[in-house]
């Protein structure tokens, strides 16, 4: 059997071992098992990508077994590797490996360590199935699998109510998108009779014209699924709360891999999306709105992980914007570089949080540059990439996106300005985060905990260095998607590009840095005085994520609870309970007759005889 089929298999075996043996495994054994499995997957992925570059067709596929058949169509359990899924598996297994190594050290003292690693492994299995699936049913299996793991890991510390609520919220909100996606898949199957991705992309183009109604609805419903999973407007509210999980989880699931599944889905279903330019422009607008919203929200956060969560949301907004504008490869490229630098940022933040005894409040940090020089350096690298300063990997991918926007028929100058404003916001909130946390003097004089006292420094440091290297030089990796993405959408190169476009795009982060240097002066020069976020309307509004939670609470949650309250005694239930009520009635009547009184029984016998005599004679 091809090596391809083995890639998700190793973590699956490791997951089974970890979940069955559980606490009987020592830390050393459990971490060796889980990291080893991911390492095997990563090596296999590298070998497969090597094979792929040698393959003539640019595609490697392997059929494991036939899953079930739907009418004439057969749904197989089979994997499909082209250059798009190759990028995804290398990100999932590569970045996943580094995060696993870090997580093993980070979670070392947790009593449920092996359960944690088991869930992480299961997540990798599901994610690999998602990106390797050759048909949409298998993709959906992986899609739901990663959702489940996200739920399990957000609520990993389930003794605290807050975490459980966050997990539930993430699960329910993404389920809204998943339902839309499932309906889209049904519609797709009904009209094409086919669920194999390559075949769908091909026959959709043959069957429909650009602008037909059916592909419009299908693409819109698929976008619904992508929006839910990738935390885009209007289903973005779950991501900031998802930071309740352990930090490596935030790095792996809620920054590097799972939240980009929506981007992958849209890129994968390119054939359908290209048939509906309207939905493409919706994708672009959703991305642009989300990146602005998240940028503003990140400006007012005080929790270091929430800042990073909003920044993830906004970077995925960039990817969506790229996809919507038809810059497919730029979007996927940004997906990859974002996975590198966001994983780096989250893991470094994890080290900081660990060193400060689980202090996540930026207002209580300060002066970390002196206390934790190595982590600070790594964090700076991550922030530079996030701000897309020239030379870093973020620069290459983000500039590629911004460059494609102006002349794209589905994006245009307005969205270009949105992206520029987003870049400006990115650099402002990055600087604010850095000034608050790392410059000035320490505000809470908490002792910095020696990270390498009881955690093995090899695992806690080296993944960060590797990720920093990838973040800095990942932009030099050249991705060739010519085989996957057809460069359609080049209807007419609409607007002419003015000469100042590119210089402005490159200069934007610097403008943001200069602005924050002046504007956040009291954060920068803080001498240890306590800080407070001013309670202005703007701060409150942004701090709440622009009021979406509030809106949904009053628009959806409250009315739903009200209805549920009214229908407390379920009407349908009452109909079913009628049966029980009828039986109970007879039970009561008959048990009342069994009263133990002899005369009553004698009367019963007599009446029965009279009755029977009457029946017989009449």
């Amino acid at each position: 059997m091809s090596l391809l089929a083995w890639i998700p298999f190793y973590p699956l075996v490791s997951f089974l071992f970890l979940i069955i043996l559980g606490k009987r495994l020592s830390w050393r054994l459990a971490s060796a098992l889980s990291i080893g499995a991911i390492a095997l997957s990563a090596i296999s992925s590298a070998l497969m990508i090597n094979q792929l570059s040698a393959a003539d067709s640019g595609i490697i596929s392997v059929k494991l077994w036939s899953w079930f058949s739907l009418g004439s169509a057969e749904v197989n359990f089979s994997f499909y590797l082209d250059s798009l899924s190759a990028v995804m598996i290398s990100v999932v297994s590569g970045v996943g490996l580094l995060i696993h190594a870090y997580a093993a050290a980070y979670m070392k003292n947790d009593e449920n360590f092996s359960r944690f690693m088991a869930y992480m492994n299961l997540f990798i299995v599901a994610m690999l199935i998602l990106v390797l699936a050759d048909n949409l049913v298998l993709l959906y299996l992986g899609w739901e699998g990663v959702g489940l793991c996200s739920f399990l890991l957000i609520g990993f510390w389930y003794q605290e109510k807050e975490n459980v609520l966050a997990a539930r919220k993430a699960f329910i909100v993404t389920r809204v998108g998943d339902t839309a996606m499932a309906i889209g898949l049904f519609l797709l199957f009904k009209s094409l009779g086919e669920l194999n991705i390559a075949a769908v992309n091909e026959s959709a183009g043959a069957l429909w014209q650009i602008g037909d109604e059916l592909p419009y609805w299908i693409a819109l419903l698929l976008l619904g699924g992508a929006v839910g999973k990738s935390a885009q407007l209007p289903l973005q509210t779950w991501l900031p709360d998802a930071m309740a999980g352990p930090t490596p989880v935030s790095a792996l699931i809620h920054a590097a891999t799972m939240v980009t599944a929506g981007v992958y889905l849209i890129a994968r279903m390119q054939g359908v999306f290209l048939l509906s330019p309207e939905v493409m422009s919706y994708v672009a607008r959703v991305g642009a709105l989300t990146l602005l919203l998240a940028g503003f929200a990140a400006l007012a956060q005080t929790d270091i992980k929430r800042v990073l969560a909003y920044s993830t949301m906004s970077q995925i907004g960039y990817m969506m914007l790229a996809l919507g504008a038809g810059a497919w490869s730029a979007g996927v490229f940004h997906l990859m570089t974002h996975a590198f630098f966001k994983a780096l940022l989250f893991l470094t933040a994890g080290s900081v949080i660990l060193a400060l005894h689980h202090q996540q409040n930026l207002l209580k940090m300060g002066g970390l540059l002196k206390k934790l020089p190595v982590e600070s350096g790594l964090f700076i690298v991550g922030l530079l990439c996030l701000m897309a300063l020239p030379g870093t990997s973020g620069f290459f991918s983000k500039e590629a996106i911004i460059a494609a926007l102006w002349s794209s028929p589905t994006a245009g100058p307005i969205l270009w300005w949105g992206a520029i404003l987003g870049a400006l916001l990115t650099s402002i909130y990055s600087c604010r985060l850095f000034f608050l946390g790392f410059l000035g003097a320490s505000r809470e004089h908490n002792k910095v905990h020696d990270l390498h006292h009881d955690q093995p420094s090899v695992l806690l440091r080296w993944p960060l260095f590797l990720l920093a290297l990838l973040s800095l030089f990942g932009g030099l990796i050249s991705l060739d998607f010519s085989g996957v993405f057809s460069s359609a959408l080049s209807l007419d190169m609409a607007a002419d590009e003015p000469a100042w476009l590119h210089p402005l795009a490159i200069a934007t982060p610097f403008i943001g840095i200069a602005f924050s240097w002046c504007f956040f002066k009291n954060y920068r020069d803080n001498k240890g005085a306590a800080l407070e976020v001013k309670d202005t309307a703007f701060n409150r509004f942004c701090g709440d994520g622009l009021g979406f939670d509030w809106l949904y609470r009053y628009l959806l949650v409250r009315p739903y609870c009200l209805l549920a309250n009214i229908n407390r005694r379920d009407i349908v239930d009452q109909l079913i309970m009628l049966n029980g009520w009828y039986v109970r009635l007879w039970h009561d009547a008959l048990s009342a007759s069994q009263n133990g009184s002899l005369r009553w029984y004698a009367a019963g016998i007599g009446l029965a005889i009279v009755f029977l005599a009457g029946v017989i004679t009449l």
Partner: protein
Amino acid sequence: MTAIPLNHVLMLACILFAIGFIGVISRKNTLFILMSLEIMLNAVGVAFIGAGSVWQQADGQIMFILILSLAAAEVAIGLALLLRMQRRYQSLDIDKLSELRG
């Protein structure tokens, strides 16, 4: 001696039987219940004898003798039970005995 029509005999038997039955279900005192049972047995005996005289057969009278001996046996046991009951409950109220719950 004019023959008494069978109808009359059967009517008498029915009335006696009904009186006995009503006595069984309406009386509380166990002694009276036993007496009512005797009335019912006698009602049956009347019907047998009536039928025997109509068909000129001895079977009816034999049956009545059987019933009489059965009644004697039943009364012997019944009265013994009554004595036990009086000892135990200090009353002959049949409803006091309704301890067996369905």
